[in-house]
């Protein structure tokens, strides 16, 4: 697939799903510590996210980096907007900003109180 086709595929994924996590591994069984942290936070908040395992596709693994202009995985998208990688998501969660963002964008979740 061309890079444009991969980017189109990614654009469709992030527009068709409210919350998308590009990660290494699968929901509940991440293969990387950073993906694990984001998975844990999202599950804690009860967010029903769409996981995309980049280990299953070298094209998506490379394509998501150029699509976002972001060199690392995991990458979290909410309502089509790039939120960040692991450190940013964790900081936002700890500050309550992630919960606010989910509320503002109308994404169903609960208010977790655990500190990640």
């Amino acid at each position, binding site marked *: 697939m061309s890079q444009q086709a991969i980017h189109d595929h990614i654009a469709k994924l992030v527009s068709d799903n409210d919350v998308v996590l590009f990660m290494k591994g699968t929901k509940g069984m991440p293969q990387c510590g950073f993906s694990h942290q984001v998975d844990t936070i999202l599950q804690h908040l009860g967010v029903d996210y769409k996981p995309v395992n980049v280990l299953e596709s070298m094209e998506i693994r490379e394509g998501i980096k150029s699509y976002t202009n972001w060199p690392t995985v995991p990458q979290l998208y909410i309502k089509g907007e790039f939120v960040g*990688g692991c450190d940013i998501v964790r*900081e936002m969660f700890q500050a309550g900003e992630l919960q606010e963002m989910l509320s503002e964008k109308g994404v169903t979740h609960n208010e977790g109180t655990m500190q990640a």
Partner: protein
Amino acid sequence: MSVEAEIRQMLMVALEPIRLDVINESHMHAGHAGSPGTGESHFRVLVVSPQFNGRSRVERHRLVNEALGDLLRKRIHALALATFAPGEAIRA
């Protein structure tokens, strides 16, 4: 030059930080899946830079990513990053 020293040099030049911590955590990940075993693959970086003033977290991380360039793409396996503007409370 070690990867740690290169990170330090590149960020010093690009971001003119007032504080820069670069910690090599590779030993904590030795032997796990995907770890290259070079002893200089996993780093934790804390940067306090005036260039972060008025910038979002994503913008700050992009500045760091761009400063590291190929080093990040090719030699660094994992980078934990904390970015602050001067005067912000530091939570490492």
